[in-house]
């Protein structure tokens, strides 16, 4: 009898232990593909902690939203862009992060905290910072007889006919136009919007291609001499052809912050905290920045960054550039009208 109960006890303990290990043994991330969370870093985490990491790749913030809202208990962590953090937060999908479980949270640059999408820094941890800027082939611009490009307004020069590539998104293109007119992003004043619409239409002859994923290719192969694109793309373009140089338009630039957030119903919150703390280690954050070519919001990572990264103004944003950036806030108020104007613009 005694032996039976001892055996039973052992079995119960083993079952409990195994199930505890099982639940601690796996976390599921959802974010962009293409080594956005570098595989080597994930493997190191898996080896160190024994927690298996599932990586669900998606191609849009909205895909992340639908997947998370359909199955909130299937995902632990997401990296999603600022505006989507705002939506998910307001829809009550996100967990308030327990900072006591994240000692490395102190490494994050306060400059990137407390933004509009998470005013009290409760839900989000910034992971990858990027801006939109101009990538310019100055030599070719000169050959075309255009004056040097320093501002958005310079994109309207008739010499640049069919020589400009831009990312394909109404809010962003209207943003350029509004800035060149001296207004703010996402202006709603009908008079200013009407003015921007006219100016936008005048830009059409200069645009050779609308491309969101690889606009830098058009500069590398020479079909465009100026591109309006995201900083990580400009970094790649510049690496492929050093004649392609960044220009930070004096009117100001949009900034984007992709952030880690945790599902409110995350199945393995402990594992998720371990992962978050792991990737916020200074040397890990530096290696991630080196691989992904995004600006790291991890202040403590700076000494570990490679020289090329530290000397590149697109990656290591100078303070005066960072100060001249702003978010697209209030996109919802302008979306419909901008999209309508944008369609009209493209059909011209």
């Amino acid at each position, binding site marked *: 009898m005694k032996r039976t109960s001892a055996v039973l006890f052992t079995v119960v303990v083993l079952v409990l232990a195994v199930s505890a290990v099982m639940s601690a043994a796996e976390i599921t991330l959802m974010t962009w593909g293409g080594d956005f969370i570098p595989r080597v870093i994930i493997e190191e985490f898996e080896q160190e902690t024994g927690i298996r990491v599932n990586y669900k790749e998606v191609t*849009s*913030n*909205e*895909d992340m939203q639908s997947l998370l809202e359909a199955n909130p208990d299937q995902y632990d962590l997401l990296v999603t862009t600022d505006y989507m953090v705002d*939506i998910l937060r*307001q*829809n009550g999908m996100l967990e308030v992060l327990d900072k006591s479980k994240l000692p490395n949270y102190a490494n994050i640059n306060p400059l990137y905290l407390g933004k509009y999408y998470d005013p009290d820094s409760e839900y989000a941890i910034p992971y990858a910072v990027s801006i939109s800027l101009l990538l310019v082939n100055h030599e070719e611009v000169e050959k075309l007889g255009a004056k040097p490009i320093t501002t958005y307004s310079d994109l309207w020069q008739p010499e640049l006919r*069919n020589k400009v590539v831009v990312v*394909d*998104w*109404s*809010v962003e293109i209207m943003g350029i136009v509004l800035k060149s007119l001296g207004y703010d992003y996402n202006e709603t004043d009908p008079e200013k919007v009407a003015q921007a619409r006219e100016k936008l239409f005048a830009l059409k002859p200069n*645009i*050779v*291609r*609308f*491309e969101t994923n690889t606009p830098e290719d058009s500069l590398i*192969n*020479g*079909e465009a001499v100026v591109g309006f694109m995201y900083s990580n793309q400009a970094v790649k373009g510049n690496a492929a052809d050093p004649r392609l140089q960044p220009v930070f338009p004096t009117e100001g630039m949009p900034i984007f912050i992709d952030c880690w957030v945790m599902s409110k119903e995350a199945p393995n919150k402990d594992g998720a905290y371990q992962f978050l703390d792991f990737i916020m280690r200074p040397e890990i954050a530096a290696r991630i920045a080196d691989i992904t070519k995004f600006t790291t919001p991890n202040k403590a990572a700076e000494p570990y960054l490679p020289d090329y990264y530290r000397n590149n103004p697109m990656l290591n944003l100078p303070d005066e550039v960072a100060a001249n950036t702003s978010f697209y806030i209030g996109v*919802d*108020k302008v*979306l*419909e009208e901008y*999209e*309508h104007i944008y*369609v*009209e613009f*493209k*059909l011209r």
Partner: protein
Amino acid sequence: MRTWKRNLLAVPILLWIGLLVGIPMLLVVALSFLSRDHLGNIVYQFTLDNWRKVVDPIYLRVFWNSLLMALLTALITLLVGYPVAYITSNLSPRRRALSLGLIMLPFWISSLLRTYGWMILLGNAGVINNVLMALGLIERPLPMMYKFGTSLVGTAYMLLPFMIVAVFNSVDKLDRSLLEASYDLGASRWKTFFHITIPLTLPGIVGGFTLVFIPALGLYFVSDLLGGGNTVFLGNLIHTLATRGRNRPLAAAFSLGMVALALMVLAFYWKVTKDKTGEGLFQ
């Protein structure tokens, strides 16, 4: 009793279509009459607003753009595909199998990759331009990318096999003795072709037209990559509205507009194919 039993066999597929096509379709219809809040969440409030926007003059031009693209694609694939199908059906069985195999071969590769292949061919630093420049025929690259025509070529290429196979099936069934009879009665080759071959293969032509037209309405990634996003098709617009545009109800209304375009072509197909000889179409 026997027909009843035979009809029973159709139940699984009817259930399948009913559940996986019918219900989502009804949801799309319902969605097109609903509202949304500023975060893009669906609000259960009836509105006709989305439909009012669909008939906005600017958006109607998007419909026209897509219609034009689909019609031209179907026309080009017909002009290119008909001779291929005709010649293939006249080959010896072995060569015919080879020819059909080669026509199907591109399907083994992702359509996205094949689109990138076109970019490598047509780009400013692409194969064609490099060859022409190396031969000294041109001094600077011919700009062939990012035009309506580029998208058209890409879409037609993508859908050509559908046309060939549809026409092939029809040509293959063609009773050759009718052609001989036509020649015996003194008709020329052209006369025979236009009065015998085409009317008899009309179901295949219209079938291929339908098979090409409908997907051509939705192949928006081709126009994004090859057309450089320089114009807007229904597919692009629906995609934008359903994602960053945060307007799924409006996207639903546009999707139904696209379904209506497809149904129009299907109606045409039914009308024509019921009339097997195709006389109605040639009068």
